[in-house]
């Protein structure tokens, strides 16, 4: 605490006894300012301590083979390759599902909908969905998506045939569909991040000045032409930043995925694709990957954190470092998009 600098204080002494009171009040003011400053900067301190503690615990285990090995019960061999690939596929499909639906909803709510009862319900409902704990979406995913996948896996076990109009029978092919596959996980995560994606896209659409819409409509463009050729391109930087940030939230999300089943025991990469080259050279495996079992980075970290062997602390810390690096890369991407877009578009 700094001692009040009497030289800088106004000396008000025309009321007897006021001098001491004013000094006390100014001291109080400074103490309060320092308390608030302390509260704010303690956030920075916590962040630094957290990062240092994690990086420090990862020293000794973090090495190139940590990202080329798959998981193992032996802490020296355990690696994160399967989790990295699992998260990659998850995020790929989560974005594929959530971007069209999320942007579509935002366009409807901001550009097309008139304020009526139904639209109000949708808006209130979106606000409430954003506050639903992510684990509740996990229950939904388990009950709806996983059960559907289980039904599909029975249909496609190679022994099922359907009669079509009593004329001929169609035998369903044998497809390796797992109950807890990538698509089930991605659909669940989509529901988790959809309210955020919609809110971010709405925000971006709202920041497009209405003069652009009016000008386009005045030139004879229809409403959809205006939205598709003028409004969406203008809002695109904002939308993509929001989408990228929500996606990075999905990467760290573990609770809804854990609800889907015993994911942490999987040590294989989805579709057995363990290098980017195989994405191009093994088309059949690429097609199998979405229906394959998976594990994800946060799930592996959870799994390692609860292992009783102390060596797994280092493994978990290394996993966290890898996850943080991935998140950092994604967030930098968002920042680059924002930076370039704000340079190009000005109104």
């Amino acid at each position, binding site marked *: 605490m700094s001692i009040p600098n009497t030289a800088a204080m106004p000396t008000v002494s025309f009321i007897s006894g006021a001098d001491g009171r004013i000094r006390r009040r100014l001291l109080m003011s400074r103490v309060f300012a320092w308390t*608030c*400053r302390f*509260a704010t900067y303690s956030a920075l301190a916590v962040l630094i301590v957290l990062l240092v503690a994690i990086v420090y615990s990862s020293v000794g285990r973090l090495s190139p083979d940590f990202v080329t090995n798959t998981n193992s019960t032996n802490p020296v061999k355990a690696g994160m390759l399967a989790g990295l690939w699992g998260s990659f596929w998850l995020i790929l499909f989560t974005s594929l599902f959530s971007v069209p639906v999320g942007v579509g909803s935002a366009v409807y709510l901001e550009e097309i909908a008139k304020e009526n009862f139904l639209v109000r319900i949708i808006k209130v409902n979106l606000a*409430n969905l954003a506050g639903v*704990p992510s*684990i*509740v979406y996990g*229950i939904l995913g388990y009950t*709806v998506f996983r059960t559907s996948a289980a039904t599909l896996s029975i249909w496609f076990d190679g022994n099922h045939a359907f009669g079509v109009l009593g004329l001929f029978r169609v035998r369903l092919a044998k497809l390796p569909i797992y109950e807890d596959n990538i698509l089930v996980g991605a659909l669940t995560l989509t529901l988790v991040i*959809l309210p955020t994606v919609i809110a971010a896209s709405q925000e971006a659409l709202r920041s497009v000045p209405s003069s652009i819409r009016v000008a386009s409509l005045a030139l004879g463009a229809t409403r959809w032409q205006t939205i598709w050729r003028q409004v969406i391109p203008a809002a695109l930087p904002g939308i993509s930043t929001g989408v990228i940030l929500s996606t990075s939230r999905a990467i760290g999300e573990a609770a809804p995925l854990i609800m889907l089943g015993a994911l942490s025991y999987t040590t294989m990469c989805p579709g057995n694709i363990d290098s980017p080259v195989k994405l191009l050279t093994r088309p059949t495996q690429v097609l199998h990957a979405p229906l394959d079992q998976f594990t994800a980075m946060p799930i592996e970290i959870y799994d390692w954190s609860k292992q009783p062997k102390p060596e797994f602390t280092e493994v978990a810390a290394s996993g966290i470092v890898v996850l943080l690096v991935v998140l950092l890369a994604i967030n930098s991407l968002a920042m680059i998009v924002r930076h370039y877009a704000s340079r190009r578009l000005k109104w």
Partner: protein
Amino acid sequence: MARSKTQAWASQRVFRYHEKLIQSVLFLCAALSVLTTAAIIMVLLGNAVYAPGEKKAFFEQVSLWQFLTGTHWKPVDGPAGRFGMIPLFSGTFMVALIASVVSVPLGLGAAIYMSEYAAPREREFLKPILEVLAGIPSVIYGFFALKFITPWILKPALGLVGLELGTFNTLSAGIVVGIMVTPLIASLSEDVIRSVPRSLREAAYALGSTRFDVSARVVVPAALSGILAAFLLAFSRAIGETMAVVIAGGQQPIATLNPLRGAQTMTSFMVHASTGDSAADSISRMSIYAIGIALFVITLTINLISGWILRRFREVYQ
């Protein structure tokens, strides 16, 4: 001439159908969110309250009164099972309470500092830091609590006073959850504090108030309802927080108010039960849905109250 006119009409009609189609597709996208809510409610009710078919729902086997007031949580099939949610409830509220004790002063202090004291440049530096703190995944906070806060900070500190701390404890879990929700309180409260009109501040300064007087006696009281809404939202977030609590809080469903011991929360029970291998229609599996309903109802209620307070606050100043 006439022909081109009919052509123009025709193409316009095609346009109109085309537009209608697109608009309906977009409407379906927006309506999907309502469908999601409906699905959540159906799934929870359909397994907890009333199950069609031969499957028996949770509350068809355990009475609501037993569930709400029972003090033993032992989710096993057969006669040994006890389904009283008080232990999970107390664990959840312990964590949320500790989180509030940590996050309310920090978040409010940060909000006041950033809106009343910090220069714009300093604010531009502080805001992203809080965003980063909010963006760190929950699993990482769990690891931090279990492997760093408990053994390296709390154990030595409490050891000095002579208190015994368990490896898993609600204290460390509550602290990290508090750190996680601090940015939420800070940013929401800051928005609210900023929307307090300038004239109030200027009037107070003109009457000879110090900065402390202005912040603590004028601005914060004026923004109080909005700040309260932020606290409530953070509290509900803390109740729904999962991974950090699962990792650091332990898995014993004991009704205890001792933060030095481990306790199971509603969320950590759900994670624990879903990693087990009980049959899909067994009562131990069904109990997940019952706890899910409790969690959903509690968080939704708090969020609705918070939203209602925030709307009333906005009506006053905007």
